[in-house]
């Protein structure tokens, strides 16, 4: 088992409003969970809790049975996170951005591996273009190239389909499903409807809101 | 001719320390700008040729 992430009785409060409480989430190898909910229902907040960036107002989060704060290093070695802002430096080229990302993940990769990953997201020919010369969607694709470049069992993705065109969406859906098939686990927020919806579990936030 | 000998010319009436660096920098700048501009032209031409070759390849 690579992924054993459990949230018990999780609650989150923002500005005197309970976004959710008694939330249970159990993630194992092969699970693909999609978090749904209206705008402002707390999807991003939940992801921040699960990655340890926010501290829960109630409940606990465990990685392989250990509290997240204790298992921090092991957890991070298994995690690939892409947030609303994907961590792509505007002044650096696609190649440089990914080299740094891989190093941060603690993974040594060759330049050829980076070029392959960029080719995978349709950025061949843009390897040496600074990100600020790219369109909104191309910039997000640089971040998505990490999915191929940095092998991690657990993916946590906040609105990964933002600004991606139709082909890109199909590719990304496929990539998420194949990650699940290879024994990885994915949690993501999205307003987008999956083609292969039956492979994907839904967690719906703020049904009342 | 304002100087008696070549060494007098070099000494500049005792002001060699001031006159020669001033003229030196001026010369350096003029020569430097010429060289810089020519290097710029050379690199540009190389770039254009490379691009031409690349486009010839892809076509």
């Amino acid at each position, binding site marked *: 088992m690579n992924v054993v992430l459990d949230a018990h009785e999780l609650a989150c409060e923002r500005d005197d409003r309970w976004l959710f409480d008694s939330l249970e989430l159990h993630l194992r*190898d092969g699970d693909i969970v999609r978090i749904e909910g209206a705008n402002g229902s707390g999807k991003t907040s939940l992801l921040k809790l699960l990655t340890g960036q926010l501290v829960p107002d109630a409940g606990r989060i465990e990685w392989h049975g250990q509290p997240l704060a204790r298992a921090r290093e092991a957890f*991070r070695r298994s995690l690939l996170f892409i947030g609303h802002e994907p*961590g*792509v430096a505007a002044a650096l080229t696609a190649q440089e951005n990914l080299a740094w990302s891989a190093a941060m993940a*603690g*993974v040594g990769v060759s330049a050829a591996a980076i070029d392959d990953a960029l080719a995978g997201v349709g950025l061949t020919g843009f390897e040496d273009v600074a990100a600020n010369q790219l369109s909104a969607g191309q910039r997000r694709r640089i971040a998505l190239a990490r999915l191929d470049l940095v092998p991690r069992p657990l993916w946590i993705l906040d609105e990964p389909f933002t600004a991606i065109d139709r082909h890109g969406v199909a590719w990304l859906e496929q990539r998420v499903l194949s990650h699940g098939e*290879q024994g990885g686990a994915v949690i993501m927020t999205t307003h987008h409807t999956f083609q292969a919806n039956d492979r994907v579990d839904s967690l719906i936030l703020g049904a009342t809101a | 001719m304002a100087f008696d000998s070549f060494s007098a010319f070099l000494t500049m009436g005792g002001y060699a320390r001031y006159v020669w660096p001033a003229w030196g920098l001026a010369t350096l700048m003029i020569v430097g700008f010429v060289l810089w501009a020519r290097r710029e032209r050379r690199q540009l031409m190389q770039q254009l040729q490379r691009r031409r070759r690349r486009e010839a390849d892809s076509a």
Partner: protein
Amino acid sequence: MSSREMPVATPTRLGWAHVCLAQLRRELALARRRGGDWLNPLLFLALVVVLFPLGISPQPARLADVAPGLLWVAALLAMLLSLDALFRTDHADGTLEQMLLAPQPLPLLCLTKVVVHWLLTGVPLALCAPWLGVLLSLPAGAAPVLIGSLLLGSATLSLIGAIGAALTVGLPRGGILLSLLILPLYIPVLIFGAGAVQTALAGGSAAPAMALLGAMLALAVAGAPFAIAGALRISVNG
């Protein structure tokens, strides 16, 4: 692929040295991409040095008097201004978030960033200050102590300043708030830094003041990276 083959074992697992190197390479690439940006603190220093004679008085004797303090204060302000941008773009584009979630020691990554900042700001400032001293009629003999004190001092300034930059990175108008948080902490460095130059000019030995600057730097190197990392954690989680 079967479920067993899920590659948790990464291609090669990097040691800390490699990670630091990657961070260093990134920062230098960014600096290169920004072109002549490293010149800006120098030019700011030069301009402030010009402002003073214009504002105060152009008499050489009076200027020479205030020169060490003036150069030190101007260098300090130049450091301060350049610090504002230290984490700003990294925060805006999500890079900091990625750093926080990386399985690498954050203080080390922060220290690397600060070292690059010092190399590109503090060192050039120290090396240029004596030339600007000429404009203020500072005797040439003061140059070695001026350079030395600025080298030591600016490293401390970078480290302390980075704490402030980390604390204010999430705020819209960081710049001037940063100055406020940081200037009081800069005062000891300023006193001993300018003091060293002044004693050297007066014919005394600058060694004690320099030793103190060194001690402050040691303290800052030991403590600041952790403070910076903590401050970043606070600023980013939002």
